[in-house]
């Protein structure tokens, strides 16, 4: 499959503006989109599925995505910071928009932002997309959020996604979380040392697992 649509498969390794340019190139060829996207959308690999969903999302909801991105570019961060709510007013507003107005249509944009721009954009803006993910809880969001934490977010930004995982369904989150923890723990054992990223991941994820266990235990 990958050799048939190299423009798309390049998205997997690209990041930031390079990724955005490539995504736009992919979208130009709608014939290829129509031909190849269904196969990627059904791929066993979650990242192919997610990239396919992002491309489909841009194909179907580009106006919405551009509107949301433009609105966020217009936020007067300085003015928000004077208010007692701080920038969280924007998060609350967009979480509510996602819940009531955008629905699941907004999720591919959110996944794209956290995976491809999560370490590049201002943190308040990335959190806005994390909040929208949490506001429309879908199982498909779990792997993108975990990958954001594991591979994209700077170490001191990893915990920002913990609240998003709390908002997703525990039955979706916990198996994936457990699997990721095993991988990280195995890597730590193999290296023989605990690097700061692994330490932070294991700290945050362990906490989430404990919370979930406490929530599911009888009172």
């Amino acid at each position, binding site marked *: 499959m990958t050799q048939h649509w190299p423009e798309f498969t390049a998205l997997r390794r690209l990041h930031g503006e390079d990724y955005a340019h490539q995504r736009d190139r992919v979208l130009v060829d709608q014939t290829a989109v129509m031909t190849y996207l269904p196969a990627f959308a059904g791929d066993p690999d979650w990242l192919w599925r997610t990239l396919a969903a992002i491309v489909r999302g841009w194909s179907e909801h580009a106006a919405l995505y551009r509107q949301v991105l433009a609105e966020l570019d217009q936020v007067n*961060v*300085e003015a928000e910071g004077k208010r007692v709510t701080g920038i969280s007013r924007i998060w*609350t507003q967009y979480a509510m928009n996602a819940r009531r107005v955008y629905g699941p249509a907004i999720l591919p944009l959110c996944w794209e932002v956290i995976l491809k721009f999560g370490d590049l954009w201002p943190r*308040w803006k990335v959190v806005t997309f994390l909040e929208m993910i949490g506001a429309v809880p879908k199982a498909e969001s779990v792997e993108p959020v975990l990958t954001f934490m594991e591979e994209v977010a700077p170490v001191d930004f990893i*915990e920002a996604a913990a609240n998003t995982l709390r908002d997703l369904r525990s039955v979706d989150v916990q198996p994936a979380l457990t699997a990721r923890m095993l991988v990280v723990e195995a890597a730590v054992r193999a290296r023989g040392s605990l690097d700061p990223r692994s330490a932070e991941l294991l700290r945050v994820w362990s906490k989430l697992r404990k919370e979930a266990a406490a929530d599911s235990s009888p009172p």
Partner: protein
Amino acid sequence: MGLGGGVQRGESERGPTAATRPGNTMEACLVEYHLHVDADRDGVVDDDRSHNDRWAWGPGSKGAIILCNNDDEDRQHCCDNEDAQINTAPDPDDIAPLVIRRAAGHPPAPGSWRGFLEVSAEDAPRLRVFASRSSGAAQVLGAGVGDPAQGGTAAVLSWPLTDLNFTEKELGVEAVMYAQGSFTGEVVIKLRIERGGSGTYEEQVRMRVAPWIAFNHLDPTTRVYVGEAIDNAEFRRDLAAQVAAAGLPAPEVAPPPHGRDRWLQDAMELGFSSLPRTGPPAARHLPVVLRTANNRSEMRWGTIDRYPRERMLEPGFGWVQAMPPGIGGTLDSFGNLECSPPFTHSRRGKEYKFGRLVYGEHVDGGARRNMQPDVVDFLRAQQVQEPFTLDTGWLEVGHVDEVMTFVPMKNAPKKFKVALASPNEALTILRRMRAARQGATPLLQLTPPPPRADRPPTDATPQELYDNYPLRTVDAMLDDATFMDVQVIVQEYLDGVKAKLMEELDLAESEIIPLPVLFMLDRTYFIAYTPGVVNMLVLTKPDKTVRLVIPKPFGPMIDGVCQFESHIRAALGPPGLTGVDLEFVDDFFTYHVNSGEIHCGTNSKREPPVDRWWWEQQV
């Protein structure tokens, strides 16, 4: 077995305790070493050690106490319990005694005997034991310092005593952390004596970390805090006048850069911890500031959250955080955490000697629209102020201080009442005025100040902010169907808040004072339209009378009298009877237009009570 005679000790004298229980090898020997602590909580180490291994709440109960020693006696800009020694005097006062005593009349142990003081791996990071209770004493047991992987030291689980040639050795103990998570607040320290190949003797003491206790409005105010924002000089002047009128020292002004972030209330919650001592008072009180879990600069407010650690931490003033600060949400601000005055819940038969904590929640709001679990866990783990929640998720800001406050009132049955925001009260006033043909009377009569010269061009001018409040007469408000619908909806929410307060605080209807506030809808959430008069600063005097500094409501004026103000004065009663004095201060263009009020922009330190002790509460 023994060294000389064969005297049986222990059981015949004191009954079967942990130290003398049959089978314990110590009971047959002539040399006994025991642990002694202040289990009866009078500030003096007890001879009696029969309760050392238990800890109980309540009057007359036993169990030793240690203090989370988080002030900074030597002004090193770190908490005393972050290093491995007892710091400059009076740091020893923060250290609980732990005494190893050789039984009276017993000879020293043989040279082959070895003594060890030990803690479990679980407890080790929670405490430090020092070689004595003097300044400079080195840590011998307990928590490490820093991260061992980065050059720090590891925790010490076992400390071998140099020798046993003493009749009494006094050690000191401090806590490194408060109860939280799996840590209930209790730690166990064990004495183990290896008797030269003739068996081992063990006994233990159980100690509890003194909880962090939030101040409440019945605690006398000792200091007021306010931030130096770019536009609040006039407000600070007015506030200082009110603080002076209450007989208090001038407010502590957090200067820039901290103070640019004006929301002092949201950055911290002030409280205290107490250790028994010989009185009076019968406790060593340590005021402790709990910082918000929000990293406020990451959330684009500013740096006032760093003020507690960078400026307030000092000798006799501790600092703590419930979790490393991160990107939370608005409900993590401590305007969303208040504490009731003390009361007894008669229907539940429970006395809350230090009141109850109350915070707002947004039930379907998602994790970031609720207080962080670690913070809630911290508050619950302290046990003495059993928190409960109010539904504030319908508010844009979501803080409890937007809708209620506790007003000490000397003639009230519980010595306090709850002031609660009420659109109904406001509308009753407006409707009465319309009936009296005063519907054209204006509200919110203000003159916006000129724009600041250094205002960024994208910032709204005061006039533009003022224009966000377009309904400015009695008739305009009453005739605006949407505005009136908002008041109905908000009143329903507030009725729910009232019912929950009455249930959890055992209040009668007459103990709730509704005060006039009108609300507006900002997209999907509600926020005060007229200044939120319940969002006030309560200045409490030593005699428990108070001066309330209330946001000026700018209600409708008749003959130069604001009808909201006169209603509020009447509702709170005559000062001579209630002990409640009050004044209104204009916060409109400095706080109200930014979605907050006076309480949000201030904070207060208070005097811990000297007539009640947390360990005497039944939890």
